[in-house]
């Protein structure tokens, strides 16, 4: 376990909700405001780091608004906290503002939709290790699958602010246009590189969109879109880095593409976790041991969630 958490100022903090906006199908952006010690702790939260939110006392939405597939799960009491990464961190004076992009998938995220300005939430964080920027890179490719766009949006901001010599291009994919977590008129997106996704365009970053069914942008997997792009580019692998966040089969593909072209690649992994602070040992990620056919389990929460892709044994 060599990559221990860099989050040394982690703790339990209270955050005030400032906004909770629906941005499409089942996606929302939750805006949080930290004061005092929480503001200090989260001011330096790196892209890819995460936090554990307590949603156990958050109310359910009115029953008639609950999606049919969540009706049975909705009544279940929440016990554990839920892990979320951030899509934006902004500091203003003595306050830190943190945005979370989330998708309604179960009883906790369903409750999350009822949070509104004035509410407060208990948060443990910042946790884990974020994306790292190795020296000498000239091009960074951000590859997002569905909800994976969140932490990559935060990374886009940091790369453009702190690494102005690195060119950044974003790739965002989903099954259909409805499953893309962005605010633009997505059905009008072309197959061309451009500033169609405002979440990345804000930072001057061009993006490519891919949908499996062709309902927006490139028709096919985002990894195919990435391959095609790489096929047309004449940059040396060693000058590039790929950052991936999304479903595991997609990350496995991204890792393979990167490996073939000898491009550094970091992926943000996701696991069920109870604590987020390295004690429950639930969030195991199988990793290779260099020079051995044996593998070990590292912890998504403490050793990750961002891992060097070549060290991960992706589950099939």
């Amino acid at each position, binding site marked *: 376990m060599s990559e221990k958490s860099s989050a040394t100022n982690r703790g339990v903090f209270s955050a005030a909700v400032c906004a909770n906006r629906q941005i499409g199908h089942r996606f929302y952006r939750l805006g949080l405001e930290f004061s005092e010690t929480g503001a200090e702790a989260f001011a330096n939260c790196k892209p890819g780091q995460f936090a554990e939110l307590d949603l156990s006392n958050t109310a359910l939405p009115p029953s008639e608004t609950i999606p049919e597939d969540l009706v049975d799960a909705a009544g279940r009491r929440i*016990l*554990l906290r839920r892990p979320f990464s951030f899509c934006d961190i902004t500091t203003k004076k003595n306050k830190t503002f943190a945005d979370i992009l989330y998708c309604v998938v179960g009883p906790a995220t369903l409750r999350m939709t009822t949070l509104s300005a004035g509410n407060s939430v208990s948060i443990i964080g910042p946790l884990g290790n974020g994306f790292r920027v190795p020296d000498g890179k000239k091009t960074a490719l951000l590859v997002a699958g569905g909800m994976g766009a969140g932490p990559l949006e935060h990374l886009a901001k940091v790369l453009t602010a702190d690494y102005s010599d690195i060119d950044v291009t974003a790739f965002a994919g989903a099954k259909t246009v409805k499953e893309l977590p962005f605010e633009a008129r997505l059905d009008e997106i072309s197959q061309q590189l451009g500033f169609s996704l405002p979440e990345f365009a804000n930072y001057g970053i061009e993006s490519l969109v891919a949908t499996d069914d062709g309902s927006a942008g490139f028709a096919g997997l985002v990894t195919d879109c990435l391959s095609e792009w790489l096929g047309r580019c004449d940059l040396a692998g060693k000058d590039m880095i790929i950052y991936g966040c999304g479903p595991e089969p997609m990350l496995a593909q991204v890792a393979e593409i990167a490996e073939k072209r000898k491009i550094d690649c970091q992926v943000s992994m996701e696991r069920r976790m*109870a604590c987020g602070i390295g*004690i429950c040992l639930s969030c*195991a990620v199988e990793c290779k041991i260099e020079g051995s056919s044996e593998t070990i389990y590292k912890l998504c929460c403490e050793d990750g969630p961002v891992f060097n892709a070549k060290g991960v044994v992706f589950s099939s």
Partner: protein
Amino acid sequence: MNEDVDISVEFAGIRLSNPVFTASGTCGYADELSDFMDVNSLGGFITKSITLAPKKGNATPRIVETDSGMLNAIGWANIGLDAFIEEKLPALEKLSCAVFVNVAGETIDEYVAVTERLADEKAIAGFELNISCPNVKLGGITFGTDPEQVAEVTSAVKKVSGEKILMVKLSPAVTDISVTAQAAVDTGADALSLVNTFTAMVVDIETRRPVLANKTGGLSGPAIKPIAVYLVNKVYNEVAKERGIPILGMGGIRTASDAIAFIIAGASAVGVGTANFIEPGCTVKIIEGIRKYCTRKEIANIKELVGSLDRDLTD
């Protein structure tokens, strides 16, 4: 806060500043919790299970949340005895609370070997013998559900545990928990801890598969609390009280009220487990709440409360 109330407890011959422990597997090796609380404020601390060799643990998913509870099937993932001694023990030595090492194994020899190596370590107050883990193929619960095997492993470990407290952690997966409790006490247990988790399963109805990679897991959390309180009271009445054996009661404790219920039922001390995942500093609040309760009820010494259930199972 009323400092006149004495919530320190005598536990198998040692004095604890208060009756609250963190339960094995929910507090790491202590350093993980130190960002959130002063571990020394605890009465006792129990390490994650230690086996002779390092263990990778089970495949994922290793946990799933259930109604008011969770299932885990970690599979004894731990750094192994050598690394524990080298990397973790020095920090544990600095703790002023009582440190117990949870000992696990696939064979009796393994339990004996781990205990023997640690028996002279001054950082350690005692051992908690894990013969009740439901998530491993060999060892664990296979020892804890058969009274003859409970006796065999307890007596074998007792021969090497020296001056240290030997606490045996009981499984609830038996017809009569007093039988296994009796077997442990008769063969050298100085204390009993109960209960470990309940074997359980969650089914994904879309895939028709168990959610956990291990198929089954151990149920913990508030869902098991009333059963655990009952089992503590049963063991207290039928085994522990007469023999003067202290019980570390656990199962779904989140609040001081929960802890007090266990103590009234017969526990001399309590273990907080799953709640540490949600509020890593919750034990500090529980200790304070116990003190407040004693003040309100004019209980000068918490030992008055142990097993003080009015109308218990024997009435």
